[in-house]
């Protein structure tokens, strides 16, 4: 049981009361010793010998991101001899679950990478430090105000966006051209997209793309094109069963025609590019975020291109610049100042920015973005060039999703499984989703 925490420790400790007998006393003495050994050794003090401060910094991501982050951290340690940083990383799903357990146990890492979906939950749960109080060491003057605001909950700055990403339709360049199609241009519509999928399927014999019906992200973009949103300002659902029925009817029809991937293919999606139909070579295109799209490079030997997401029929774009990940500091860190220094270094230091590149998305820090543009190489440059034409043309990002959204993303996928395996009609599945979502958001 972790003791000596500032946060409410639960369950509450009880004081020992027992009949005064020698036996009980002996047993209790043993208990106390064991407890001291097992639980109370971790008091949150992490100052090691020699007066150096030790920080824990964790993130999720692939080995490339890890190598670049570690290099930047080494530089930080060199510039701040008194601070030692212990790093660790994992894939997104295990990271999410581990962090939740650590945070609940009052043992969150000093500096942590956060997703948009985590901020509301962690900030309102008292896990995160108000970074507004660390302005002396942590500068945010070079950040786009709109994106910076995405890290605020109730007016307090709990997390700072590191990079920004936007959704894209990734496609196999060679096969797309071989089918006689033009590269998609900004402003192409969902109807154009559906026609392209059918055309590809007819010409290549493979589905034109991965069925986007399972993706809450793709649905959000379709919805925003129509001026709606996933969630309202007061964290209720921003769409109706009728909206979702229309989306699922649209994708389900394409699936039945063979224009998008079959249920057997779609159900294998697990968040890694390796298990996507495009990655497995069973489809020509699919929608994904731009930063992780680098993973397709080794899987699609003919090369890939990034296309804008389809717009609404009247040309309204649904995609937006999303803060792709955030940095936050634990509320119960023993070293708020040093932690803030590390955050500042990762976000504002020119040398660190050059090392990290676009491995966390294109930097949100505007001066750094302009400075490193010419240095970007390979896929970092592809992403930069993909994002550049959108500058100033996309609608503002939605506010941080409510804490239930993380679970709803999976629910969305599961409910669509029922549609694509033809066990429920789009309307029935949509109504199920609305019921489940309302229950999730209520609690």
């Amino acid at each position, binding site marked *: 049981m972790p003791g000596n925490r500032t946060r409410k420790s*639960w369950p509450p400790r009880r004081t020992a009361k*027992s009949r005064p007998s020698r*036996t009980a006393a002996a047993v209790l003495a043993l*208990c106390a010793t064991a407890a001291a050994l097992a639980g109370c050794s971790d008091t949150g003090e992490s100052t090691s010998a020699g007066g150096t401060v030790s920080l824990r910094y964790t993130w999720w991501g692939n080995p490339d991101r890890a190598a670049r982050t570690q290099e930047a951290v080494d530089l930080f340690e060199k510039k701040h001899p008194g601070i030692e940083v212990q790093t660790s990383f994992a894939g997104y799903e295990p990271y999410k679950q581990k962090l939740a357990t650590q945070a609940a146990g009052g043992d969150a890492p000093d500096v942590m990478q956060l997703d948009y979906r985590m901020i509301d939950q962690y900030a309102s749960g008292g896990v995160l430090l108000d970074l507004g109080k660390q302005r002396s060491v942590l500068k945010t003057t070079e950040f786009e105000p709109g994106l910076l605001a995405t890290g605020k909950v109730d007016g307090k700055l709990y997390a700072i966006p590191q990079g920004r990403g936007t959704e894209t339709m990734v496609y196999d360049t060679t096969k797309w051209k071989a089918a006689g199609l033009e590269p998609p241009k900004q402003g192409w519509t969902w109807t154009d997209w559906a026609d392209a999928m059918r055309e590809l399927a007819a010409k290549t014999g493979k589905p034109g793309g991965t069925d986007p019906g399972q993706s809450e992200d793709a649905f959000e973009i379709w919805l925003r094109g129509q001026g709606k949103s996933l969630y309202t300002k007061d964290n209720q659902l921003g769409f109706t069963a009728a909206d979702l029925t229309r989306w699922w009817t649209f994708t389900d029809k394409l699936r039945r025609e063979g224009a998008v991937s079959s*249920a057997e293919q779609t*159900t294998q999606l697990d968040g890694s590019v390796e298990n996507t139909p495009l990655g497995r070579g069973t489809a020509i295109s699919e929608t994904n975020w731009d930063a992780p799209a680098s993973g397709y490079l080794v899987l699609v030997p003919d090369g890939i291109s990034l296309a804008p997401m389809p717009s609404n029929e009247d040309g309204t774009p649904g995609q937006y610049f999303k803060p792709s990940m955030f940095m936050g500091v634990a509320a119960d860190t023993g070293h708020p100042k040093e932690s803030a220094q590390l955050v500042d270094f990762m976000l504002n230091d020119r040398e660190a920015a050059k090392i990290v590149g676009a491995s966390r998305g294109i930097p949100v820090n505007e001066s750094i973005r302009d400075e490193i543009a010419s240095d970007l190489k390979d896929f970092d440059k592809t992403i930069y060039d993909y994002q550049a034409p959108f500058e100033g043309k996309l609608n503002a990002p939605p506010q941080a999703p409510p804490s239930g959204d993380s679970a709803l993303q999976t629910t969305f996928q599961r409910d669509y*499984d029922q549609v694509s395996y033809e066990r429920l009609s789009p309307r029935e599945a949509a109504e199920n989703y609305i019921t489940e979502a309302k229950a999730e958001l209520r609690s």
Partner: protein
Amino acid sequence: MTTTQIPTPARTQDVDPPTKPPRRQREGAAWVFLSPWVLGAAVLTLLPMAVSLYLSFTDYDLFNPPQWVGLRNYTQMFTEDPRYWRSVVATLTYVVIAVPLQLGLALVVALALKGMRRGKGFYRSAFYAPSLLGASMSIALVWRAIFNDGGTVDNLLGTGGWVNKPGWALFTVALLTVWQFGAPMVIFLAGLQQIPAELYEAAAVDGASRWRQFLSITVPMLSPVIFFNLVLQTIQAFQVFTPAFAVSAGKGGPADSTLFYTLYLYDRGFVASHMGYASAMAWTLLLVIGAVTAVLFRTSRSWVFYASEGDR
């Protein structure tokens, strides 16, 4: 620490003869020696269980203090959650398929091994090996690769993947469990060797066929062991988690066909952060397993034969 209730059993000291140390003192020594176990059971099992019972009546998201909601988790589970019932159906289907298949296979292999003269030790180890490997995540991942489309089975049989078809996925997971029949097999083998050879000799003299001997001698004499294996494997099957988690990449798919009870419990607790709801699910599972075991024990009176009871 909450081990405040260590019972101090000795209350009377009147009967002890004066030459021995007082009874209380002797029992005290026993408690000291027991203390590692008592501590472990109290702190690591009983306390968490009590906490989870409390949490099952609350709304608890890990970060904010639990809010008392009475029976709401339970009513929501039984009346408002279609996915809960899907997980119940998937689990029951799995138990009904996997347990008889596994025990049947274990018995067949044990019978074959019993009659073997040479190489028994080798084959016994070989058949047991999957049970050593099977609990690991890596075998489940290999399983997924073998039965996925483009995997070994697809290439050999041309059936496409099994793990991505709702009608087949559960069977694939059950197959992984059945394959790990080592533990019940070893127990069966031990049970078979306990059956006195005279019984078979007498039956053979009377002209009973092998099949007749199996039905009239092996099955009744082995029935306590069959019962033991049945209870143990049923309890384990209700709690199956790892294979389904790995084979369906944690989703219980396709189309919730392998969404076993524990998988859904994990999903509610650790993915959706509804620890209260997950605790309610856990306690319901405990009660159901208890009830099923009680039913098994009740039916056992009519089919389990204990030789030591003599003829009834």
